[in-house]
């Protein structure tokens, strides 16, 4: 593909041109450059309202791009090393949906790690594909799910040779990467497509010092949250295609569910952040990595905390580690991650990304400053001084292989009744039961409810896990077929 000029931002340039032309708007949006919503204009700023335009000749059309959006998508594809790219305005969830629906249909099998994002299983409810789960394995000490081991993938492929695709989370929220390249080779040798949920890896394509990106590993499709590490606005995202994928087919799939009024604010933010990553990504992520490494060292000097990094790499289920992620195990200080999450916000005015039973994650990006990291480190030091308790070990959670009796779609749309959890053994669930931690579904729609599963749900509840997924917010009863 001919190299485009990454200094250009075609959508942004077109918006600025249209803005300068002072065109009289007798089209939507009805706020008319903000004049019709003066309070909103004061809140968001005039330039924001003026750029909130609708599709028109000079601005192209997201559903059938022929000019500036097409150019922006080509530049994006080149920047990410993809054969084609789609700008997405319905969140990474929509990219995940399009990815799965592009390669599977009703009744097709798709191999997934059990800790997939729920948007993946929701997509199976939409299109009727059948999940085959792989246990991602976990680090018992830290209490986090890991990547996919190559042997597990091989077993799943051998047992399901007719599967159409395999989906991989890479990296996980905690920065754990699988052996993408080997999985791709294995899957392709069995005529399976490889889909990557790369929501937390938008930066991988831009630095040789980071783990391999999905496209570089030869994956067929990848869903990339530009709004996470890429710097664009919330809800903007990318879908990337490898060379074996027909992008026109993917476009049709996207248009099944995508808005016909794509936000130009989101598109402009994708365009600008792609430009920024292409021009400065390398130095930006080196700097973020340096900051994360610095914070890891400082936090590990405090004592009792464990800010983990590349030393976790074991060549298999932790094939690589994303060094920009700052995850800290807090159990050594006798504190649950969720406690630290709350204390550090309520008492120290520091908001972190999340805290689970044993870990916290601080999300680092180019927007961070070293003095803010000093605050984070100092607050962790203070929390230890003030609240330290004897070390409490993590409860261990057994992985129970799910028995998929019905497809998620069949289960979701079937006649259902609510039963008290204790009486549900032997029935088929029509909904999810999720426990955080470890953040792996215990049940998904279409799976058999066994006595072991009921016991695991009870155990998780007793250990203080946060249970979600069922209509009953207490997870006391469950809907079954």
């Amino acid at each position, binding site marked *: 593909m001919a190299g485009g000029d990454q200094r250009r931002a075609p959508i942004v340039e077109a918006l600025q041109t249209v803005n300068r032309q002072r065109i009289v708007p007798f089209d939507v949006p009805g706020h008319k450059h903000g004049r019709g919503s003066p309070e909103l204009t004061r809140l968001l700023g005039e330039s924001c309202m003026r750029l909130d335009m609708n599709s028109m000749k000079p601005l192209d059309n997201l559903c059938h791009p022929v000019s500036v959006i097409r150019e922006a998508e080509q530049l994006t594809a080149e920047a990410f090393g993809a054969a084609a790219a789609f700008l997405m305005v319905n969140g990474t969830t929509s990219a995940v949906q399009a990815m799965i629906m592009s390669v599977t249909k009703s009744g097709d099998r798709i191999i997934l790690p059990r800790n997939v994002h729920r948007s993946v299983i929701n997509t199976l409810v939409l299109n009727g594909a059948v999940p085959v789960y792989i246990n991602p394995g976990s680090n018992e000490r830290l209490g986090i799910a890991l990547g996919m081991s190559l042997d597990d993938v091989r077993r799943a492929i051998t047992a399901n040779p007719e599967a159409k695709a395999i989906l991989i989370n890479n990296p996980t929220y905690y920065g754990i990467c699988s052996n993408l390249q080997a999985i791709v080779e294995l899957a392709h040798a069995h005529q399976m497509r490889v889909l990557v949920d790369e929501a937390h890896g938008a930066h991988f394509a831009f630095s040789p010092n980071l783990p391999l990106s999905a496209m570089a590993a030869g994956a067929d499709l990848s869903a990339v949250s530009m709004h996470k590490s890429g710097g664009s606005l919330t809800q903007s995202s990318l879908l990337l295609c490898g060379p074996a994928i027909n992008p026109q087919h993917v476009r049709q799939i996207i248009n099944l569910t995508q808005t016909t009024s794509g936000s130009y604010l989101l598109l402009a933010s994708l365009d600008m952040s792609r430009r920024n990553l292409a021009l400065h990504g390398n130095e930006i992520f080196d700097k973020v990595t340096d900051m994360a490494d610095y914070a890891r060292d*400082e936090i590990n000097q405090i004592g009792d905390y464990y800010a983990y990094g590349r030393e976790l790499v074991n060549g298999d289920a932790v094939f690589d580690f994303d060094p920009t992620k700052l995850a800290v195990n807090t159990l050594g200080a006798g504190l649950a991650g969720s406690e630290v999450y709350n204390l550090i916000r309520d008492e120290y005015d520091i908001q972190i990304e999340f805290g689970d039973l044993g870990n916290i994650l601080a999300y680092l990006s180019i927007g961070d400053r070293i003095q803010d990291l000093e*605050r984070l480190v*100092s*607050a962790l030091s*203070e929390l230890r*001084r003030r609240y330290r308790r004897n070390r409490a070990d993590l409860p261990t959670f057994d992985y129970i292989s799910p028995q998929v009796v019905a497809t998620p779609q069949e289960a979701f749309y079937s006649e259902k009744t609510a039963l008290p959890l204790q009486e549900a053994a032997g029935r088929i669930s029509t909904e999810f039961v999720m426990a955080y931690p470890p953040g792996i579904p215990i049940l998904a729609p279409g799976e058999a409810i066994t006595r072991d599963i009921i016991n695991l749900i009870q155990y998780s509840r007793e250990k203080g896990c946060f249970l979600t997924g069922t209509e009953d917010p207490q997870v006391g009863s469950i809907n079954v077929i």
Partner: protein
Amino acid sequence: MELWFSEKHTEGVKFSIQVDQQLYSAQSPFQRIDVFESVEFGRFLTLDGYMMLTEKDEFIYHEMMVHVPMAVHPDVRRVLVIGAGDGGIIRELTAYSSIEQIDLVEIDQMVVEACREFLPQTACRLDDPRVTIHYQDGLKFVRHYENDYDLIIVDSTDPFGPGEGLFTREFYGNCCKALKEDGIMVNQHESPFYDVDALAMQRAHKRIVESFSISRVYQAHIPTYPSGHWLFGFASNRYHPIRDLRARDWKKLELTTRYYNTNLHRGAFALPNYVQALLEDVEHVELD
């Protein structure tokens, strides 16, 4: 020709000093540094356009930051000073022969260099053998010490900019940890008068109250700071600033001061009602 330095004390209030000439201007990695010469106030230092000190009134600030805790604590040997790259605090501290070690932690080396060159009135004692200058983030420095200092003086800029981290709960908590059990922390505490400053003042007070069992606020009149009415914080887990004042011992030292004396020490803790109300607003206990 008239050349004026102006600082907005609020959106609608401006404070100006006629400038004779500008002596220094530079952008450091942290902030913009300027030194001016004026007829009325002598030389003065600004950071990011905010007044830090003038030769005419700096003695008020520096004496009140140093002599108040020094007249209370009976045996100060090890002192940590955070900020204060101009050296004014150091000048006052070095007058005490009992002090053995002074660690000065300043994030911006260029401030120290500019003051050494253009403000010898304050920077004059930076080469005292007891002084060690550490160019580091104060928040980071103090985190690594435990049960080490008798006195910590926090001479911070405003809580917007590089001094931001020095107004946080984690910083005051770390100071508490770095102090010996009977240590004292004194800090620049902003002003109660204009709304924005008063909010910063309340926040700082709340954060200090959470870390120290004794936390009192005292005041001085500093003409070139917003409203001229300025506050300082005195915090300790042992000493009360008035009940434990050792006026006779301090007088015996026969130090020369232009603002501070032990009668003023007591009076400085008597606050106007509206200031007391602002403080009580963020305290869980009544002021005594």
